[in-house]
């Protein structure tokens, strides 16, 4: 199956990414693609597949990764699901492309700084001498306590923002949807009671995969309305 094998060709090492855009840029660049809507759609599955390991390595960052995951999934959905013509005029997904292009420029600037740092290419200033006479520093005791309060704040560990349930892998979600589907049901019901943000993101992708495998048909009578899912009557049975 094309979708499932494709994201195995570029192994993603967990914990080396400074954020979701870093991961996304890495995936796009690994395929030697430019930053475009098309290339972002191409790496969506791979991005989602990396969420589980990231949650294990850096759970405090998961919320930020999920925010990008949901934008990617929406972008992917726009390409795969039929939409009313009126919807096509606006291309809100360009925003993510722009964000990534800007991020890429800063990444390159950071690499430039890093190269200078690695080469030790720096200046040294001179500590003011006592001669001919020192410049006088004056201050207040309160300045000192404020400095220590700032220091104490810095010492505190960065709080974990969220505790989320583990991210569901795409194959698991596909199995879950298959098992739950009885007749004609809404996507919301298929997801189960109170799904997490990641379950919605992975769930939507699983649904799209099932559509592409021609196992189910979906219908969305109105934009942003409920998505109805039904098992496709296989050609052999019909």
């Amino acid at each position, binding site marked *: 199956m094309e979708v499932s094998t494709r994201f195995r060709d570029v192994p993603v090492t967990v914990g080396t990414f*400074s954020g979701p855009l870093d991961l996304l840029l890495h995936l796009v660049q690994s395929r030697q693609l430019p930053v475009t809507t098309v290339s972002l759609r191409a790496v969506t599955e791979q991005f989602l597949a990396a969420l589980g390991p990231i949650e294990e390595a850096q759970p405090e960052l998961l919320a930020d990764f999920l925010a990008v995951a949901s934008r990617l999934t929406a972008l992917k959905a726009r390409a795969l699901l039929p939409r009313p013509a009126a919807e096509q005029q606006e291309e809100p997904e360009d925003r993510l492309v722009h964000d990534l*292009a800007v991020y890429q420029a*800063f990444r390159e600037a*950071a690499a430039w*700084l890093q190269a200078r740092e690695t080469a030790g290419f*720096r200046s*040294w*200033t001179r500590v*003011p001498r006592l001669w001919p006479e020192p*410049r006088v520093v004056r201050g207040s005791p309160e300045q000192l306590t404020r400095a220590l309060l700032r220091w104490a704040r810095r010492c505190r560990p960065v709080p974990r923002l969220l505790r989320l349930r583990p991210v569901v892998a795409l194959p698991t979600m596909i199995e879950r949807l298959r098992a739950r589907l009885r007749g004609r049901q809404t996507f919301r019901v298929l997801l189960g009671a109170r799904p997490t943000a990641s379950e919605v993101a992975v769930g939507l992708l699983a649904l799209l995969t099932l559509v592409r495998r021609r196992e189910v048909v979906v219908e969305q009578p109105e934009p942003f309305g409920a998505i109805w899912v039904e098992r496709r009557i296989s050609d052999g049975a019909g």
Partner: protein
Amino acid sequence: MVQVDRVALLGALLFTAGEPVAKERLAAAVESSGEELEGLLEELARRATGVGLVLLEHQGRVQLATAPEVHGVIKTFLGRAEEARLSPAALETLAIVAYAQPVTRAEIEALRGVDSTAALQTLLAHGLIEPVGRRSMPGQPIEYGTTAAFLERFGLPNLGALPPLPEEVRQLLAARREAH
């Protein structure tokens, strides 16, 4: 009386001061207009290269420092320990502050797509960035900018020596700023 060379005088003043000195103070000390001072500083920078020095300029203040070209020998000479390398997250954040200053934490996080509290704290502790003001908007968030120590650490004479961002990225950033 011998007319004192004002360029040499500026050099001596900056050498003594050691730290960054406001241009107004320099102009007053050598009795020059701001415009004249620029010419004198330019000539000083030219002469300084002959003795292995550069002129760092940051927020209207200037400072003498060693030329980055001679860094290796100086480091050995001073016996300085290897400096701790900055993490990719810290470098990324530093690059954003350098190009987009003054910039708030929320803006940095929007650009990086990730919480940047820890990276900002590292950069503040290293003295590479500092609070430079507060944004006039609800909540009055702190605006950050780079320091003279940043220029020193990366061997840059001024912020203009950073490589320019691609034109389309500059436009995107400008458009976003206006939207705020």
